[in-house]
C-alpha cells in the first residue's frame, strides 16, 4: 500500500489579523522526507500550526488536502485521526495527567471503539520505544511535560510519533535546544519511522539536523512563501554559504514576514 499524500495549495494564513503565509504550495507523499528551512521569522512554524489547526491561526485562502480530503474542514482531533501528526516546538505541560495515560488515550483515539490496545501490549510497546529513545522509564509516570527539560520534551514528542504511527508527520523545530547526543537519539527515532507508508515534513533552521536525517526534498521559506526547492544538495549549500546567496538571487532584502512569525 502506498502512503498518504498531503497537498498544500496556495495557503494564506493570518494570526491576529496579520498575514504570515502568503501562498505556500507543497506536496508530501508517503515515503518522502521533506525539509522546510529558512531563517527565523519566515513563516515555517506558522505552516506547521496551520496544518494541524492551532486555534490562533486563521486560514484565509488556499487548501490543505489529505488524500483528497479537505483538512481545513476537520477539527484538530479529526485531523489527527485522519493521519496527521505535529511534533510541537513548545508542547503543553498538563498537570495531573501522566505521560503514560495520555499516550494510551492517544493510541486508542486512533483505533476503533471496542478495539482498544490492551494494557500489556501498550506497556510493551511504550517500553520498547522508550528504550529506543534512551528515555528514563520514570517519565511515563510523570505528568505530561511538567518539569521536563527541553530535551525530554522533544524525546517525548518523538515517543508519541513512534507510538501513534501517523501517515504524515510534521516536526516543528524538533532539533531546537538539543545537545548533540540528544539530537542523535531523536534523529534515530525519526529515521526508524521511514517507510513507504510514512511521509514527513521537517521544519528547521539548522542544517545540522539534516546531517542525521537525509531529506529527499529541501524547501526554503522566506517572506511567507516557499522561494526555492531542491534536493539534499540545497541543504548542504546552505550550510556552507548561508542564506545570503538566495536573497541576492531572488532580490530579497528582508526575508521575514510579520513581526512575531
Amino acid at each position, binding site marked *: 500500500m502506498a502512503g498518504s499524500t498531503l497537498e498544500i495549495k496556495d495557503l494564506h494564513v493570518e494570526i491576529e489579523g496579520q498575514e504570515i503565509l502568503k501562498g505556500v504550495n507543497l506536496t508530501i507523499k508517503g515515503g518522502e522526507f521533506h525539509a522546510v528551512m529558512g531563517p527565523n521569522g519566515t513563516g515555517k512554524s506558522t505552516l506547521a500550526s496551520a496544518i494541524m489547526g492551532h486555534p490562533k491561526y486563521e486560514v484565509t485562502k488556499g487548501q490543505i488536502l489529505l488524500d483528497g480530503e479537505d483538512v481545513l474542514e476537520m477539527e484538530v482531533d479529526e485531523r489527527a485521526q485522519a493521519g496527521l501528526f505535529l511534533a510541537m516546538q513548545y508542547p503543553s505541560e498538563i498537570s495531573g495527567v501522566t505521560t503514560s495515560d495520555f499516550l494510551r488515550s492517544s493510541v486508542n*483515539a486512533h483505533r476503533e471503539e471496542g478495539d482498544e490496545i490492551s494494557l500489556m501490549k501498550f506497556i510493551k510497546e511504550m517500553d520498547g520505544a522508550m528504550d529506543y529513545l534512551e528515555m528514563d522509564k520514570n517519565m511515563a509516570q510523570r505528568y505530561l511535560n511538567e518539569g521536563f527539560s527541553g530535551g525530554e520534551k522533544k524525546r517525548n514528542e518523538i515517543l508519541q510519533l513512534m507510538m501513534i504511527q501517523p501517515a504524515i508527520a510534521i516536526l516543528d523545530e524538533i532539533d531546537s535546544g538539543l545537545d548533540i547526543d540528544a539530537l542523535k537519539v531523536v534523529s534515530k527515532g525519526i529515521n526508524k519511522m521511514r517507510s513507504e507508508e510514512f511521509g514527513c515534513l521537517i521544519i528547521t533552521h539548522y542544517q545540522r539536523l539534516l546531517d542525521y536525517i537525509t531529506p529527499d526534498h529541501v524547501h526554503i521559506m522566506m517572506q511567507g512563501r516557499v522561494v526555492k526547492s531542491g534536493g539534499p544538495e540545497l541543504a548542504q549549500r546552505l550550510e556552507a554559504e548561508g542564506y545570503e546567496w538566495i536573497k541576492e538571487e531572488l532580490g530579497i532584502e528582508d526575508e521575514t514576514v510579520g513581526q512575531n512569525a
Partner: protein
Amino acid sequence: MTVETKLPYDQDYIRSFSANRNEPDWMQELRIKALELAEGLEMPKPDKTSIKRWNFHDFKHDVSAETIPSLKDLPKEIQVFLDMENLNENLVIQRNQSVAYKSLSSQLEEQGVILTDIQTALEKHSDLVQRYYMKDAVQIDEHKLTALHTALMNGGVFVYVPKNVQIEEPLQAIFWQEDPEAATFNHVIVVAEANSSLTYVENYISKNTDENAVANIVTEVIAHDNANINFGSVDNFSKGTTVYVNRRGVAYRDAKIEWNLGQMNDGNTISDNTTHLIGDNSYAYAKTVSVGRGEQTQNFTAKIVNYGKQSEGLILQHGVMKEAASAIFNGIGKIEHGASKSNAEQESRVLMLSKDSRGDANPILLIDEDDVTAGHAASVGRVDPIQLYYLMSRGISKQEAERLIIHGFLAPVVREIPIEAVRNQLTEVIERKVY
C-alpha cells in the same frame, strides 16, 4: 433581616437528649451553656457570600438507625467506600446518628489506640474527650453555628493515638446520612500524641435531593510534638443539605498536618479549614479540590497561621465550577510576629466550565514578621485552549481532552487519598459531577 434561627430545641430537650445518651455531666453542662450562648451570637459572615437565605433550621435532630450485622449487608452505595476484598479492620460506620459498624484491629487496641464513635468515647474516655473538646482548636462562642454545634452535637468519632505509636494502615470513618432529613452535627476529634503518626480518612454521604437537612460539623485535629497526621476526606452531601464544616488543626513543635479534602457537596456549603502552627518547625499542607454545579453557592476558606519559628504553611485550592454554581476560595496565610524564618505559600485556581458559573480566588497574606518568605498564585479562567489543542492534536476528542485536563487539575488531592476504594470513589464523584 436576621436569619431564622428559632429552633424547636430548648434546655429540657437538650437535657433529655444528653441523658438518653448517658453523657457525662460536663457534656450536658457544656451543651446547656452553648445553647444559651447561641441565643446571643451572630451567624458567621463568610467573605463575599450571603448566607441569609440558607436553611440552618429545618432538620431532624434525633434520628437513630439499626446496626448492620456485617459489612456485606451495607447497601452498594456505601460498600463502594470499602475495599470489600481486603477489609479495613479500623473502621467506624455511622448511620444517621447511630453506630452501624465499628472495628479496630487488636494490635492497635493493645497499643492504646482509640477509634470509636463520640458517644462511646464520652462514656469510656470522658476525661480524654473533655481535654480536647472545643478547647485548643475551635471555641464554642466563635459564632452562632459553633455554639449550636456544641448544643446539638449528635455524632462523630474520636481518634486517639498514644505516644510513639506509628500507624501504617489508614483509620476510616463513614458518615452515612441515610434518613433524608437527618441532621449531621458531627464532632470529630483526632489526637496524635508526641512522636506518633496516623492517617485518617472520612466520607460524608447523603442522598436527599428534595428534603432539607443541615450538617454542622466541627473537626479538631491535634498534632503534638513531632506527630504526623494525614487527614483525608470526601464530602458528598446531596443538594438538600446545607453544610457548615469547620476542620481545624493545631500543630505543636516539629508536628505535621496534611489535609486532603475532596469537597464534593451538592448543596450550599461553608467550609473553614484552618491550621494553627503553634510549635517551632511545625508544618501544614492544606489541599482541597471541589466541583460546584447546579445553583449551589459555596465558600471555602483555607487558612494557616504561623506562630512557631521556621514553621511552614502551604495551601492549594483547586475548584471547577459549572452550570450556575458559584464559589469563593479564600486562601489566608498569616504569619504572627516572632515566627521568624517561617514560610507561607498558597495557590488557588478556579476553572470555569460555563458562562453562568462564578469563581473567585481571594488570596490574602497577612505578615507581622520581617524574616519570612511568602508567596501566592491565583487564577480564574477557562480550560486552556492551547492545552486542548495539544491533546486533540493526538486524536483525542475535545470532550475527552477536557476530561483529562479536569481530572488532572483535581489530581493533587485525589492522588493523596490513601484508601484505594475512597480514591476511586472520589474520581467517580468528580466524573459524575463534571459530566
